[in-house]
């Protein structure tokens, strides 16, 4: 198991950053698909938007890596504070009555974890190059955190945070 803060070469750091973003993007798509199947277009669209944002970050990381050959890294080779990468939403956090506000709160939770992840590397990395890039990523994550906080505040004003179901699916037979 590798501690992410002990990575010494820029290629491995970028490969890991890229992996975090595509995992996050893929998971949001999986959750969007699931909410589509369960006929919740509002939540579905939110997850799709979040997937798109993570996908964009992944593309930006690829731009940073132009001209480099990135190694084949796997998420399970690294020691995380969370079961998966810091920006990946756990399936178990989602339930069929999830509200749009809760979706954004999950995204906020991911962005805060992403921020803390990069901030830790920006402090601890043995490589100056990595520290510099990690600082840049930390600042970007701070922006995302602020954006999400505002978005949540706006939504909370307009909508409640619970949903009732008069005919729940789990009536045992």
């Amino acid at each position: 198991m590798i501690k992410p803060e002990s990575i010494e070469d820029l290629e491995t750091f970028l490969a890991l950053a890229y992996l975090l973003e595509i995992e996050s993007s893929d998971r949001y798509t999986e959750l969007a698909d699931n909410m589509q199947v369960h006929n919740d277009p509002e939540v579905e669209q939110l997850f799709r938007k979040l997937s798109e944002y993570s996908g964009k970050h992944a593309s930006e990381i690829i731009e940073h890596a132009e001209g480099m050959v990135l190694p084949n890294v796997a998420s399970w080779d690294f020691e995380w504070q969370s079961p998966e990468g810091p920006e990946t939403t756990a399936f178990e956090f989602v339930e069929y009555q999830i509200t749009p506000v809760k979706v954004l709160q999950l995204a906020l939770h991911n962005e805060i974890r992403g921020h803390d992840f990069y901030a830790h590397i920006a402090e601890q990395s043995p490589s100056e190059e990595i520290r510099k890039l990690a600082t840049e990523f930390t600042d970007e994550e701070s922006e995302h955190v602020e954006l999400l906080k505002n978005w949540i505040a706006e939504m909370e004003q307009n909508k409640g945070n619970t949903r009732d179901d008069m005919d729940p699916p789990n009536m045992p037979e």
Partner: protein
Amino acid sequence: MTNLAKAKSYKSDIKPIWCPGCGDFAVLSALTKAFAFLDLAKQDLAVISGIGCSSRLPAYFSSYGFHGIHGRALPIASGLKLARPELTVIASGGDGDGFSIGGNHFIHACRRNLDMTYIVMDNEVYGMTKGQASPTTQPDWASSKLTPHGTGVRPFQPAAIALASGASFIARAFSGDPNGMTKLIIAAIQHPGFSFIQVLSPCPTFRPEQKLWKHQVEAFPHEPTDDPVKAATRLYTDDGMSSGLIFQSNYPTWNKPEVAQTSVKQFEEEFVV
């Protein structure tokens, strides 16, 4: 570039209909990551299942697959592996499918030790038929109208039974630990022989209390062993809520015997009365 970027290419266009929060999502995701990591060619890969929520799995892959009949994932997968030994064959299903109606097939598949992987998504309930007790349900679970006082029956012990029946790779994974599960799936596919993974995969709809599993599941507190006696002792003192590789040995695998080929026509003639 990471191979894992290709994980989603192993998925079909069919969107899973599982309930949001179902543990089976993590199994699907872990399998696609394992396939991508191993860089398996889709045409050399087949996912076979029985019937149940978990058994819907093959539909969600872009590789070959077969959504079979209840309890028969293993006979179908075994037949396929014998006919096409070069394929990577994954059999899958639920605890009802694998240990109730398919229980006898489970024992004999372990015994044969064909080179394939069997993944059981164990949620201790029949999810698809709306929440009845399964062989792994605790005896005092009383939330089904069919067993209002619980089943009163000792639960089936999948790992111990696999061990006693001769499976050569036995592991327990947890859908709340997707990375740990992916590693186990990779090791299971690479293992030459019958590899069995019992995945603790919560059903939040009919067993909402299983949401607590994430606080209960711990790492299996021993290094894997190739000694069945040691493994048995460990399994008997285990509460069934630990995850990791438990047992791995190099028992000989069973391969298709080299016998004279019979055409379908000749075969049919044998049955003419």
